[in-house]
């Protein structure tokens, strides 16, 4: 374990050195993600000029909603920074045979494939997320208690684990199919479902959709559970949500690991 930490530190260090070598590019990437994020914030602000709440009786008024958005930014920036750049590079590695070099090293292939690159610019959004949460918390009706503050980071980790499992499944699909552009689009469209409170998925279509996105592909638990822990009193049903998120995180890690191993056994390697 400590060896893996040491290796990860080496990776992170190398990426930081690289980012600092191309500083202008790094700043541009920070601006890029900040730009998209502020567009979305502007949209939410506009929506709140028309309505006091998103979903009648849902309780997602302005302050809780922005706590939700901030939590989403934190979770996503962690995934974007730590796992996505490596996974995106995987297509190239499969195409050029770079994956071969990974497979001959005495190291867990999943670790190398998912963590060899760190994108520090993605943390910019996470910082804004922290800022949003800090702005929203004092404005909440129910101030989160000490237990909520303990459970909050835990559920954020669950969210990260669920998304990590999805990234690994994508990586497995890439190894099997050799290319994956639509798959990455699919990832973004899928995580899109996690961007709003689960309550909006109501009615004859929304109910089943919500069930699928909670229990089959647990994407709705990613942001909803931690945001709820922060913005709502932590009692009764809320604990069930936390337990569900924990179980979903474990399942996501286990299933994706199995799928990834199966994919590696079928790896064809690019011909040279």
């Amino acid at each position: 374990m400590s060896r893996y930490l040491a290796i990860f530190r080496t990776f992170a260090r190398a990426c930081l050195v690289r980012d600092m070598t191309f500083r202008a590019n790094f700043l541009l990437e920070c601006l890029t993600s900040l730009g998209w994020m502020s567009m979305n914030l502007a949209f939410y602000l506009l929506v709140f000029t028309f309505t006091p709440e998103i979903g009648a009786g849902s309780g997602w008024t302005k302050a809780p909603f922005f706590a939700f958005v901030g939590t989403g930014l934190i979770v996503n920036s962690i995934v974007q920074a730590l796992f996505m750049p490596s996974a995106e590079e995987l297509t190239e590695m499969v195409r050029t045979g770079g994956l071969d070099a990974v497979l001959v090293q005495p190291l867990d292939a999943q670790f190398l494939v998912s963590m060899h690159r760190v994108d520090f610019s993605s943390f910019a959004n996470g910082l804004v997320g922290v800022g949003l949460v800090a702005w929203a918390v004092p404005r909440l009706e129910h101030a989160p208690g000490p237990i909520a503050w303990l459970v909050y980071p835990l559920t954020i980790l669950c969210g990260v684990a669920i998304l990590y499992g999805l990234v690994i499944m994508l990586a497995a699909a890439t190894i099997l199919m050799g290319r994956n552009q639509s798959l990455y689009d699919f990832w973004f469209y899928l995580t899109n479902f996690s961007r709003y409170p689960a309550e909006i998925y109501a009615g004859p279509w929304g109910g089943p959709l919500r069930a699928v996105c909670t229990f089959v592909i647990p994407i709705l638990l990613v942001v909803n559970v931690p945001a709820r822990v922060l913005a709502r009193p932590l009692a009764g049903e809320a604990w069930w949500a936390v337990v569900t998120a924990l179980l979903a995180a474990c399942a996501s890690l286990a299933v994706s690991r199995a799928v990834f191993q199966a994919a590696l056994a079928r790896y064809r390697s690019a011909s040279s």
Partner: protein
Amino acid sequence: MSGRSVPLEPDRHVASPRLLEGLRVWCTMLAICLEERLVYRGDFLLGTAMRFLPIVTQIFLWTAVFSATSRADIAGYTRDDVVAYYLLTMLTRAFSSMPGLAGGIARSIRDGSIKKFLVQPVDFIGFLLAARVAHKLVYYAVAIVPFAAVFLLCRGYFPPPPDAPTVLVFLASLVLAFLLGFFMEATLGMLGFWVLEVSSIVFGYMLVQYLLSGHMFPIDMLAGIPTGIPGVNVADLVQWLPFGYTAYFPAAVWLGKIEGEELFRALAVEVGWVVVMAIACRAAWHRGTRRYGAFGG
């Protein structure tokens, strides 16, 4: 049999060589585009279908917004109007979006492959336009399946179809949206003659485009936001900019949001922007290639 094997022998067509030749080149291009699509058909169908997914969340979001507010409409849009609006912008963006155009031009300037067009007897902008038309036609030929399915499924959200003249204006606005999108992106790409890294400019353009084209929300919803100038709100300003014509305008025409005199003014503004951008594009090409020739690639 193969579209690729169409021979290009201009000498044979004495009657009207240029036109026929152009047509043949274009047919070849069309066939190759179609082939490409068919090879990656799985990716392509999946990709097109997936583009509707964000709309699903948008519909649920707006349904939730309407459920919590006491008003029947927001800026003149009922809940059904909003759904119809988002679906229509999908359609309009299928005309106006030009994936890879600016980036592709900038790249070929950077890596020098643009030289090919300086040497060959082909008009670069004409070539790009023809390629784009071929590309789009093929796209529609395949994408019509998921589009038709979604529109049929959601037909309940649409108001009764507008009268024939409005439909004609709608169709015209789609074609204009295509041209406007093309010339704007092509001009951006030509900036590659002066700036090494165009991607940051393209990125800025996409941000503005995303916010002001109506892709994110109907831009007349901005009418409630004052600009500071008395009597003028943000929506009033935005309608003079080109962006709205690539997503908002055709959808608004179909939904009957813009009528009468206003409609003609908007159409005139759009035509104006198409002309301006076409001239800008050509000017950029002329100045750019002159500069390129002077400094060497």
